[in-house]
């Protein structure tokens, strides 16, 4: 297989760092030099020719090839076995409902939350436990980082170029988690979104930063969810009132209470749908009276329908914590779930 990307010669690995940093081709952290051998290993693992057209960015019609994705994946620290996840996640981001250009260009400053489901979590050694929202393991960290480098280098989503974020958030460095399917009383997020449990899948969402909450003083599902709903409503009051895909991350301690009470995903979705609502007039309480207008009594739900709530089982074993991850801006960008296309049972090609 031959590669078509331009090749540069540098003296050593440190020179490679300066070469990429000086061209704004990194996120500021060191990168793994993408040699042809390393890039070819990724392509071989995913069984993709270098010129395979993964997709075309829909607004600026920019073609994206497997070779270019692999170069950025290597730079991010990905091993070949991580690469199929990167391809699947980026393919999902290219789907029309994700609204990639808007989500990555917006002053709103969201990042791409990526949730991994299925057997590949264990194959890649992903952890869904301690510190899950703060780099819990190698695989999720480098996969999330690869997606950010791809946006920068292939679509010019760099600060001040296409990326017009006023603030952004730390998830822009890497925002990838795996769901704790084994210790969950529920079907997985991907199953809930139509993917068979035997398959591996990614779900991507243009998302704000996590908002952490705590309620370890009740075992009642309704009261636990009231805390989640309060956090969602705070986001609606302080940031965006419009309904969309909200994520709730539920660690084991709180999950146990739902399990004991026999609450399913659908029960949780229905409760949040009914209770995470505010009236427009509440904006006046947080300094936004000027935009209440004549619609103060209008009620806004956080979710257009119950299924818009994405429930992710993840987190360390102790602590009555949880998190709400809000959408970038209402329903403009929708969560997209996609099966990971590489053959999971195949052996890597012989050296």
């Amino acid at each position, binding site marked *: 297989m031959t*590669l078509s*990307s*331009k*090749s*540069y*010669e*540098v*003296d*050593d*690995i440190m*020179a*490679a760092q300066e*070469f*990429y940093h000086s061209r704004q*081709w990194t996120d500021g952290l060191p990168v793994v*030099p*993408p*040699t*042809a051998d390393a*890039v070819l290993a990724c392509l071989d693992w995913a069984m993709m020719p270098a010129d395979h057209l993964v997709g*075309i*960015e829909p*607004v*600026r*019609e*920019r*073609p*994206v090839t497997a070779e*270019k994705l692999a*170069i*950025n994946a290597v*730079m991010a620290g990905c091993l070949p076995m991580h690469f199929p996840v990167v391809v699947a996640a980026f393919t999902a981001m290219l789907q029309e409902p994700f*609204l990639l*250009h*808007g*989500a990555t*260009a*917006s*002053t709103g400053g969201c990042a791409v939350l990526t949730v991994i489901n299925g057997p590949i979590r264990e194959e890649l050694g992903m952890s869904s436990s301690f510190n899950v929202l703060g780099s819990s393991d190698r695989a999720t960290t480098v996969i999330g980082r690869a997606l950010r*480098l791809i946006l920068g*280098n*292939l*679509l*010019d989503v760099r600060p001040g170029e296409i990326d017009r974020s006023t603030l952004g958030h730390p998830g822009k460095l890497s925002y990838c988690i795996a769901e704790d399917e084994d210790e969950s009383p529920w079907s997985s997020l991907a199953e809930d979104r139509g993917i068979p449990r035997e398959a591996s899948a990614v779900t991507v969402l243009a998302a704000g930063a996590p908002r952490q909450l705590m309620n370890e003083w009740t075992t009642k599902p309704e009261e636990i969810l009231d805390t989640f709903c309060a956090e969602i409503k705070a986001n609606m009051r302080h940031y965006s009132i419009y309904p969309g895909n909200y994520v709730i991350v539920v660690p084991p301690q709180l999950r146990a209470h739902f399990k004991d009470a026999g609450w399913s995903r659908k029960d949780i979705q229905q409760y949040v749908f009914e209770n995470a609502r505010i009236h427009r007039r509440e904006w006046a309480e947080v300094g936004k009276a000027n*935009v209440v207008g004549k619609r103060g009594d209008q009620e806004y739900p956080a979710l257009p329908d119950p299924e818009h709530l994405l429930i992710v089982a993840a987190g360390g074993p102790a602590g009555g914590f949880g998190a709400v991850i809000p959408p970038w*801006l209402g329903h*403009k*960008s929708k969560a997209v779930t996609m099966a990971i296309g590489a053959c999971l049972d195949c052996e890597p090609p012989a050296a």
Partner: protein
Amino acid sequence: MTLQILDPTHEGAVGGFALASRLSALKGATVGIISNGKKNTIPFFDAFEDELKSHYGVAEVVRRIKSNYSAPADPHIVEEAENWDAVVAGIGD
């Protein structure tokens, strides 16, 4: 020992866009403003329209608002724009 490393960028592999030909003058022209529709764009483009007409002699200003301010202009607006002499991509916040 030196390293051979690869270019991670698109290397100019961009879509087939080309700028429209430039107008020599605005006098008598029909100019479209495709606004992203954010609230504060309204007074801004009101003033801009006045300036185009009073200072530059623009004959007509056509104002259109995108249905989604984070997405490209709706197809019917793009189709209509073919009848205008110039278009302003009206991004405001």
